[in-house]
């Protein structure tokens, strides 16, 4: 019980892995499968780390899925037009960043609730994406070199896992070890206090939203590289899952605050459950039932343990 209380969902993750490993030592419990899970979780985790930044502020960015789709489609469209890889990537990341900055500006400057601001702005981005792609899936002209950024392995580690590792380290340092990170936590913890001591609240909020969108853009690029095609609603699945990861992570460490390590744990839980249930051959509907139940159990377990103290 003490473990549950202290480490919450981190412990739940370990337990879930253990259960699956016992149930399927041949398929689930192998090193290659566990490595594979890190790859499967990587795009979700990258989006979720972005969402963590805005959640630290106590805000939501519901446009992340729209940005993922946008980034994928606009990259594919640029490739089709023959633009070189480096320029495509820079342009797409810059556009994503700018979109996040717009959301952040609306929230910080005009105090539009982030939920509605990013929802509405996400709809706008979705419209843009449909415009660019004419609603179609784009797959021609995506260079193999670009595709290799989202597949294959380096020294046995899947490339998407490496991307995730890099993003996780950078953003963990940013949130935990820099003044910017401390300021974000301060703004999220008590916006009034942050204003009273003269923190650059607006600027920091804009930056956080911009970084969040840039990560979503990166995930969109990697998704397109991974699939070799771009779908105008390809990012749709990431929205709720990313926030599920952040919320799961909030019960993992610290005083219920969003954090990068926590979000990684959350994303890992989601990926492990989906991987494990498929490997065990559980039918679709039961997978949904169990996924929901396991996530609930993972957050409940700590709260129940705390109560009993």
């Amino acid at each position, binding site marked *: 019980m003490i473990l549950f209380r202290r480490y919450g969902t981190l412990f739940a993750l370990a337990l879930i892995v253990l259960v699956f490993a016992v149930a399927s030592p041949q398929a689930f419990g192998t090193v290659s499968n566990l490595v594979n899970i890190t790859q499967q979780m990587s795009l979700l985790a990258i989006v979720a780390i972005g969402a963590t930044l805005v959640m630290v502020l106590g805000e939501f960015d519901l446009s992340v899925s729209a940005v993922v789709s946008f980034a994928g489609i606009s990259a594919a469209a640029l490739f089709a037009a023959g633009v070189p890889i480096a320029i495509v990537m820079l342009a797409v990341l810059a556009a994503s960043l700018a979109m996040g900055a717009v959301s952040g500006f609306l929230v910080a400057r005009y105090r539009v609730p982030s939920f509605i601001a990013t929802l509405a702005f996400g709809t706008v981005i979705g419209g843009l994406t449909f415009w660019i792609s004419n609603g179609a899936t784009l797959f021609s002209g995506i260079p193999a070199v670009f595709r290799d950024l989202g597949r294959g392995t380096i020294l046995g580690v899947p490339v998407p896992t490496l991307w995730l590792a890099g993003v996780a380290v950078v953003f963990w*340092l940013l949130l935990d*070890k*820099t*003044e910017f990170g*401390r*300021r974000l*936590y*301060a703004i999220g*913890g*008590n916006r*009034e*206090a*942050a*204003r*009273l*001591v*003269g*923190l650059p609240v607006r600027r920091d909020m804009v930056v956080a939203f911009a970084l969040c969108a840039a990560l979503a853009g990166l995930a969109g690029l990697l998704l397109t590289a991974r699939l070799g095609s771009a779908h105008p609603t390809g990012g749709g699945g990431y929205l709720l899952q990313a926030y599920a990861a952040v919320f799961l992570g909030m019960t993992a460490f*610290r*005083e*219920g*605050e969003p954090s990068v390590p926590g979000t990684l744990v959350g994303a890992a839980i989601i990926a492990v459950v989906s991987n494990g249930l498929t490997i065990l051959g559980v039918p679709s509907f039961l997978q949904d039932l169990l996924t929901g139940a396991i996530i609930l159990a993972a957050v409940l377990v700590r709260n129940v343990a705390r109560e009993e103290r």
Partner: protein
Amino acid sequence: MTFAPFLALDGLVKHFGATKALDGADLAIEAGSVHALVGENGAGKSTLIKTLSGLYQPDAGTIRLDGAPVTIDGPRAAEAMGLRFIHQELNLVPHFDAVGNAWIGRRHPRRGPFIDGRAMRAKVAEVAARIAPDLPLDRPAARLTPGQRQMAEIVRALMEPARLVVMDEPTSSLSEGEAERLHAVVRQLAAEGCAVLFISHRLDEVLDLCGRYTVLRNGRTVGAGAIAEIDRAGLVARMSGQGTLGTGSGEPSLPLRERVGERGTTSVSPVESFASPAFPHPNPPHKGEGASGQKPVLAADLAFGPAGSRIAMQLRPGEIVGLYGLVGAGRSSLLRTLWGATPGRGLIAIDGQVPGHGPAGRIARGMAYVPEDRRREGLALALSIEDNLALAHLADFRARRSLPLPSKAKIRAFAKRTGDRLRLVAAGPDSSPATLSGGNQQKLLFGRWLGRPIRVLLVDEPTRGVDVGAKGEIHAEMRRIASDGAAVLMATSDIEELAALSTRVLVLHAGRLVAELDGASLTRAAVVAAAFGHAPDEPRPPSELSA
């Protein structure tokens, strides 16, 4: 010596909608002086300092620093001028500890590109050692008591040298010893050349600590001068508008209460309770009967709050029992446990009956509770003032007994009555409690329970931040409640208040009852000594202990 201010505020005006929070306020502060800013609740003190801190822009008036007019367009600008603020409503980040909070908005010490946690802590520990050696530095602010949070704020303000430190009611939740420690720090600051602007409703403290004073009334400066040339009665008279300046004219009339107008004549409180605050002060039980020999209204034998705290006690009808202790001694925890708001093990009986579960069960048995932290535990800022007042017993305001439909008219009438009784100054019953001044918010919390039959009243710092006039009203209400046969348990850090009201005093130290004082044994020295954990017969002044 001539009066040579380095900072001068002239004719500041600030309106909030129809409310004139500041209406021509002047203030001049000399370098290295301790300057008192006093005034009734809602006089505009907090608004004045928020304007000085750059949070509000004045509608008119000038601020001059070293003789030159300046505009302070934000907290950063004020900071750059060497001004530091401790605002009335505490502003800590709840999940940061005292160290993290102290560094917000400052340039953090770094190692390479990253912040250096160890250096941060060392610096804070150094400052805290001087002011608040007992402050737990590693606990999130959310789990500190208001007193501890107050200290964390003070630590934060004193992290760097300043020209002026503004403290808005810093001692309102500190007990005697801690307040004295703060006074020592203030004197030392002044000696080092840093001016202190000190806002307080504890007038004795003001007279003792400060060199000059400014009195605000209805947003206007109505008096200023050297403390040496005025006494307590003089201050009170100026604050309330009685005496030399007369009642103000042309004041806005307010729906909840005709603002201040008649205050000079009827109120300014039973001054006697402040005039002679010295123990022993044998307050008789307020029902006029012998306290002993009666059936207790409240009997409790409880483990409460942090591990190891336990208390057995009985409250008898007509008693006002004071609960004293240092910051973090466990007074609030005890009250919350009695109220059923935090789980505790043990027994509690009201009039011999075990009450139902939680606060609702206590309310059903006639218990009432005024929490300590008004922002966090008291007010629902999304609701109007009158809805906040009605919240605790909504069912009393039904248009028809049998239907759970509150009558707006009844709620308004209650709000009007209560507002009148407690001199609540507000823009109107419909506005948010966020627009109330600190003291008026406190009155609102207390006012919730008026007009209900009460058997046991638990109050935690009932007059925190309340001006002398209204303090008298609240004290009178508590006496009246006691004399109706109820028992009152009052946790307070204000020793004057303790003296004025208590028939008996329980002193807690680290979660344990260390002394029960009444009659002849009830002396100020005994109370303070017990609070510091000494046997009552070997009293030592707290100043000796602060080293």
